[in-house]
């Protein structure tokens, strides 16, 4: 096996909020091989979006990377200069945001924005070639080329998301991060977008990192899953296995609530955020039915189980 495309090692990121420092991502570890499709599942506030932003170097000003590294093709992304980023962002790593609906400049035509993007990264291409290429890609995402002459506000949310997907294909990236790409879309559009992402990543052999709060959506796209809670990776493994045999109490909770069809989502009031993160023990221990004394004191370490195919972060599994 070759070296992984993306490797996140011991990554801890904290935010400074009103002179308090809060760890949002804590000691996250995972690997992503070329061609893999990994789902990162977790409820809101679990640090998954921060993780994605960190990979693209887009952390907000009040965020601090405390420790760890993000290796992309062996390069530590956390140490890049802004010039070096230019070669990575969108050329190597593209991202579809949760808020991609608002991700387009409202006062510029779609076509112009795509042309601008392409020319920025390929300085010496002729305009005709670029147009041709863009029309081709627009067709690929099932849109009519006439949208190129429209402004973002004239498109529906789904159409805008398709434009973003198209733009991510424009430069043939190695890694595509899709952060909740279907939130705020209706169910039909949702499945269309997901199947589009799936089709494209298969066709072009793009490595995919799919971030969602909905494990059922993850199952449509991905083979592997990483469950996040409280800023860290709780469980990792083949998606099928994880669903059929959840090891971590949180995963069990997630799956059971899914089965009970409680809306498919777990909402947690944001007010709890600080309570569990400032806590030195296991972040899940307050809600964990198996909570023990040790869970309140020390932070669990990831443990390989089931012939190293699964990684779990829980004191229930020792050795």
């Amino acid at each position, binding site marked *: 096996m070759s070296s992984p495309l993306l490797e996140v090692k011991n990554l801890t990121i904290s935010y400074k909020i009103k002179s308090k420092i809060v760890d949002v991502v804590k000691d996250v570890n995972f690997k992503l091989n070329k061609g893999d499709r990994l789902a990162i599942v977790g409820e809101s506030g679990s640090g998954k979006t921060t993780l994605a932003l960190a990979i693209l170097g887009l952390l907000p000003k009040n965020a601090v990377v405390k420790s760890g590294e993000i290796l992309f093709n062996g390069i530590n992304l956390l140490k890049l200069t802004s010039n070096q980023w230019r070669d990575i962002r969108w050329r190597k790593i593209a991202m579809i945001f949760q808020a991609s609906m608002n991700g387009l400049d409202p006062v*510029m035509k779609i076509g*112009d924005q795509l042309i*601008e993007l392409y*020319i*920025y990264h390929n300085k010496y291409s002729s*305009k005709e070639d670029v147009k041709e290429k863009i029309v081709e890609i627009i067709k690929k995402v099932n849109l009519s080329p006439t949208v190129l002459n429209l402004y973002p506000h004239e498109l529906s949310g789904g159409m805008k998301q398709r434009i973003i997907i198209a733009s991510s294909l424009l430069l043939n990236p190695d890694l595509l991060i899709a952060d909740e790409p279907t939130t705020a879309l209706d169910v039909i559009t949702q499945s269309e977008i997901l199947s589009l992402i799936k089709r494209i990543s298969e066709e072009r052999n793009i490595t995919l990192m799919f971030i969602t709060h909905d494990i059922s959506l993850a199952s449509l796209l991905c083979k592997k899953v990483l469950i996040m809670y409280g800023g860290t990776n709780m469980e990792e493994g083949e998606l099928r296995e994880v669903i059929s045999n959840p090891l971590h109490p949180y995963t069990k909770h997630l799956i059971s609530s899914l089965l009970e069809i409680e809306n498919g989502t777990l909402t947690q009031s944001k007010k709890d955020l600080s309570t569990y993160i400032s806590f030195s023990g296991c972040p899940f221990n307050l809600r964990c039915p198996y909570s023990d004394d040790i869970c309140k004191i020390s932070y669990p370490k990831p443990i390989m189980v089931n012939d190293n195919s699964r990684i779990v972060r829980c004191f229930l599994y020792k050795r």
Partner: protein
Amino acid sequence: MRKNRLGLSNIAKSLIVIIIIIIAIIGGYIFIKNQNHTSPSSSTTSLFSTSNTTYSVSSISSNITLTAGFFEDVTSLNPVNWFTISDLDVLQLIYNTLVEVNSTGLPAPGLAQRWTISDNGSIYTFYLVHNATWQDGYPVTAQDVAFTFEYWKKYHFPYYAALAALIKNVTVINNYTVEVQLTHPYAGFLLELADIGMIIPKHIWQNVTNPYNYTNLIGDGPFEFVSRTPGVDIVLKANPNYFGGKPHFEYLVIKIFNSVDSALAALQSGTLNLIELPEGTNLQPLLSNPSIHIVTTPSTMIYYISMNTQTFPFNNTLIRQAIAYAINKTQILQLAFLDQGSVANSVISPSLQYWYNPDVMNYSYNTSEAIKLLEEAGFHLEKGVWVNSQGQQLSFTLLIPNEAPWIEIATIIKQQLSQIGIIVNIQSVDPTTWESIVIGTHNYQMTLGAWRLYFDPMLFLEPSFDSNESGPNGLDFSMFNNATVNLLIQKALQSSSLSIERYYVYQIQYVVSQQVPWIMLVYGQDIWAVQGFTNWQPVPRYGLWYYTTFINLIPSKG
């Protein structure tokens, strides 16, 4: 690079294009307008011709400009339908009057080289100079004089009603002799003509249908009208054919200044040659500038307090006298006028030497006299306030225009009167409102004012103190009603010689000073700043602003 195709460049480009368009349009417009300006009239050809005067400087006079300053722009430049004193000041440089005044303020030859007066004082015969011409080449003749006099009678021009009523008929004896018969003897006739009697050319005005807004200014004076930009400037050009001599400069530009400050700044920067500054201007910085000359000339300006003599408390002569004693005029002169002027007593200014009566009541500062008079008037002090037996307090409102020097003077008066327990409230309004109250309705208690007197004192005494003039819009705004003064005014207006008129004018001054409808404060002084020119001869009332000054002024060397 295509990179810059979008974003910044779009906005920036469009904005820059807009700026350029705006600047270009406006700039182009201004320039074209200015180009039109620069070719004043058909007489441009004479612009570079050397004049025929004997001074050696005349050879360079063709491109010398005298820039003068006015604080009040002219309103209506029309020799018969003018409105303001500024108008008159400019018009008198373009149009001659039959009679002028000499440096003592008495009649002197003008367009008429001499005149005779019949024994009863009602027939005047004028003998005109023979070499006067209109600026379009026609000679000035007796026809023009007769035409002008009849023109005043024919139309209702604001300032000529009195003259029109006075003139009975006009006879042309020959081309250069004209005889005027008055309805009654009036010695002031000549002086009135010297003030406002500008003669207009018959050949032009006889065809005019609406003389009220006719703007063609062909005159016979030392200057020709070139252009006028309202609020900015008036440009006049020397008349090379003027019978009294040609000025030693080519153009006279009158710039309009909005404040003393901007005029002083222009003086200091050397772009202004001649201006009259108001009394109370701090002259120290100008005096230290070697190129600026300060010339003070006697002025006919009088500054006074007027009181409404029909209402409490000023319907009592004793109160008016008491106030007159309680005001320290010397302090007012020192502070508000910076000693530029002199303390006043009579209503006629001493610069009208012939008419001024020095022996009038002199209310020199004397608070004990003031207190005595107040007590005599039935007032007594009660907790520091003067109260009379009916319980009325001696406090009143001093209404002033919100301009210099009124606010300063009012502040001083308020302070002086408060020292003897008289309470003054100052109310200041804008000048037009002030005039509509004081002159329009006379609905005030006390106010401050100033007049610039004409050569004929009756032009001022009659409207100001004759009780016939105390109605709405009348100028007897102190509502002064005194039978003696009324009678004296009637006599003065019928006098057949200047000395008889002077007798009555002396009497009027005395009675008015005794009755004090006005408390005379200060006689003004004309302060002129001159730079770049020498050789001036002041004239009373006009100071340096008289056509003779402009004939005499010589550009200084360097």
